[in-house]
């Protein structure tokens, strides 16, 4: 097998993405040749890449994909390689909003070069070096005079509707992306949004009336004759209106359980200093190239890795924490840290056609090390997962593990146990070490000074590699 088309790459007749010897390439088909040439020769590609909005690529002569059965090959591109893709249901509000604005800026730039952005899918945006970057080179086509924006509906479903739902109803509704791969259906958004949302003329137009128009003209065989030709200025106006609609939506990251965690009292300063120091030493001993911090909160400990130049993903279940973390990354221009939303008790599954369009979080892991600080009690006690199973899951993600054990005597665990029966006889330091010891070799064990917690550095046993 020399190559394989990637699972998500089958919808677009303009070309496809394939993998060869571990490198991802993109084939441009002959049918797309003129659009591709216009993208490259008009100056649009150069402008977008210069502004960090589009993934750069190089044209290469080989390899040719075996998927190219009908000889439709025009060019092979070797894009800048992306080691990890995240999905919109793993983004916080601000990430989705920034991805939306980036998409609109690209569409506006395209129009200046007489092209249109034909896809406004959130899946076409990835966060690279802390910024949203559009990755689908084949999403541009030459503008046809009078044509409306073909991606308008997609933009509303992928960006405006979920952002409006988060801002006006509940931020957890961003998770609708997990069910609706092509964004939130507008009639669903219409029925979920509160009445006050319709006081916003943008939402009234782009969601409510939009949904009504969809309903009114669906199945209307004569609808094509009702589409009015749009001048280029009208398209610009449309994009400006969408940008203004997107920017006006606000969600404030506060009031959730964890967003104010570090303002609380779980660690005294001395213990926290020692914990930071030990985590740093553990990271230096492992020298990972990529690290996943699970239960990262607002990324305080993730930054110990990121500041060493290590590619770091900071996962947390709390949308407010992820949002705060992302905003901090954006404001400081941090490039090594990517905050993402993840519920460890129900992690991102594989979804889409044949379950192969979007990979599960475990399939996407290229991390060398997993960090699980102040997390184990939430999984073992709040969610009743046996310690051995926790070890196995972590081991399936990465070879190395930095983990903190929080004993029952800890104030935080006492809170978890205060309203429930203690059915966790094995939840002790000994039980923890013996359960994890079956899956990992414990390489280092350091009690955190001034607390009852212990930090461990472990390495997956060769036989238990998942």
């Amino acid at each position, binding site marked *: 097998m020399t190559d394989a088309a990637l699972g998500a790459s089958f919808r677009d007749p303009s070309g496809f993405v394939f993998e060869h010897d571990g490198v991802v390439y993109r084939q441009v088909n002959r049918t797309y040749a003129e659009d591709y040439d216009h993208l490259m020769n008009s100056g649009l590609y150069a402008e977008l890449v210069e*502004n960090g909005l589009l993934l750069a690529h190089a044209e290469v002569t080989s390899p040719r994909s075996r998927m190219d059965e009908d000889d439709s090959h025009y060019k092979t591109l070797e894009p800048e390689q992306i080691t990890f893709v995240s999905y919109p249901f793993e983004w916080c509000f601000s990430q989705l*909003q*920034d991805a939306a*604005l980036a998409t609109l*800026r690209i569409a*506006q730039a395209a129009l200046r070069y007489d092209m249109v952005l034909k896809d406004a899918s959130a899946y076409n945006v990835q966060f690279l070096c802390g*910024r949203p970057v559009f990755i689908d080179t084949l999403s541009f086509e030459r503008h046809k005079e009078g044509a*409306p*924006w073909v991606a*308008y*509906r997609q933009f*509303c479903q992928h960006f405006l509707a979920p952002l409006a739902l988060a801002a006006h109803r509940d931020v957890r509704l961003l998770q609708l992306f997990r069910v609706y791969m092509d964004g939130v259906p507008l*009639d669903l958004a219409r*029925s979920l949004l509160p009445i006050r949302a*319709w*006081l916003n*003329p943008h939402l*009234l*137009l*782009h969601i*409510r*009336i*939009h*949904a*009504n*128009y*969809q*309903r*009114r*003209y*669906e*199945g*209307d065989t004569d*609808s*094509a004759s*009702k*589409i*009015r030709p*749009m001048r280029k*200025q*009208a*398209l610009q*106006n*449309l994009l*400006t*209106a969408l*940008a*203004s609609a997107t*920017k006006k939506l606000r969600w404030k990251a506060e009031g959730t359980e964890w967003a104010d965690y570090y303002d609380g009292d779980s660690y005294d300063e001395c213990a926290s200093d020692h914990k930071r120091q030990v985590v740093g030493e553990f990271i230096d001993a492992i020298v990972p190239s990529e690290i996943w911090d699970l239960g990262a909160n607002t990324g305080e400990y993730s930054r110990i890795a990121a500041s060493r130049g290590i590619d770091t993903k900071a996962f947390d279940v709390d949308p407010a924490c992820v949002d705060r973390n992302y905003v901090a990354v954006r404001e400081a221009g941090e490039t090594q840290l990517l905050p993402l939303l993840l519920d460890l008790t129900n992690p991102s599954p594989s979804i889409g056609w044949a379950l192969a369009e979007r990979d599960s979080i475990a399939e996407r892991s290229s991390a060398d090390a997993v960090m699980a600080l102040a997390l184990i009690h939430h999984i073992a006690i709040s969610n009743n997962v046996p310690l051995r199973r926790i070890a196995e899951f972590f081991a399936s993600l990465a070879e190395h593990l930095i983990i903190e054990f929080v004993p029952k005597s800890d104030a935080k665990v006492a809170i978890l146990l205060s309203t429930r029966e203690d059915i966790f006889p094995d939840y002790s330091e000994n039980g923890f070490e013996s359960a994890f010891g079956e899956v990992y070799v414990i390489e280092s064990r350091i009690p955190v000074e001034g607390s009852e917690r212990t930090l461990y550095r472990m390495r997956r046993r060769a036989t238990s590699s998942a």
Partner: protein
Amino acid sequence: MTLEAERREWHNHASMRTKKTRPPDLTPRRLSFGVVALCAAAWLPAVSQAAGPLADTGPRLAYVDPGSGSFILQALVATLAGAAVAINAYWAKIKRLFGRGTPEEDDDARGNTPGDD
């Protein structure tokens, strides 16, 4: 106390401080005429459809293309957006005429990055 007197008093008070800050905007909250007009205009098609689709949440038919409505709506959206821009521009002019113009508040600055237009 008139607004002018209040403003003068604030100025006197402010002059005693070392750091000079902007006086508070004592005029009634600036109402963007364009936004109000757009709001009103946007409701028209909603009202015209009140009898039908507003209450509808039924399932979709299997053979329909949800794209047509999106294409048809765009002309309306673009017209309203264009009108809002024009009205805002005129409104700003009128305000300047009466000396009430303030430096345009950069409402859109948030989220923009260098290179934004």
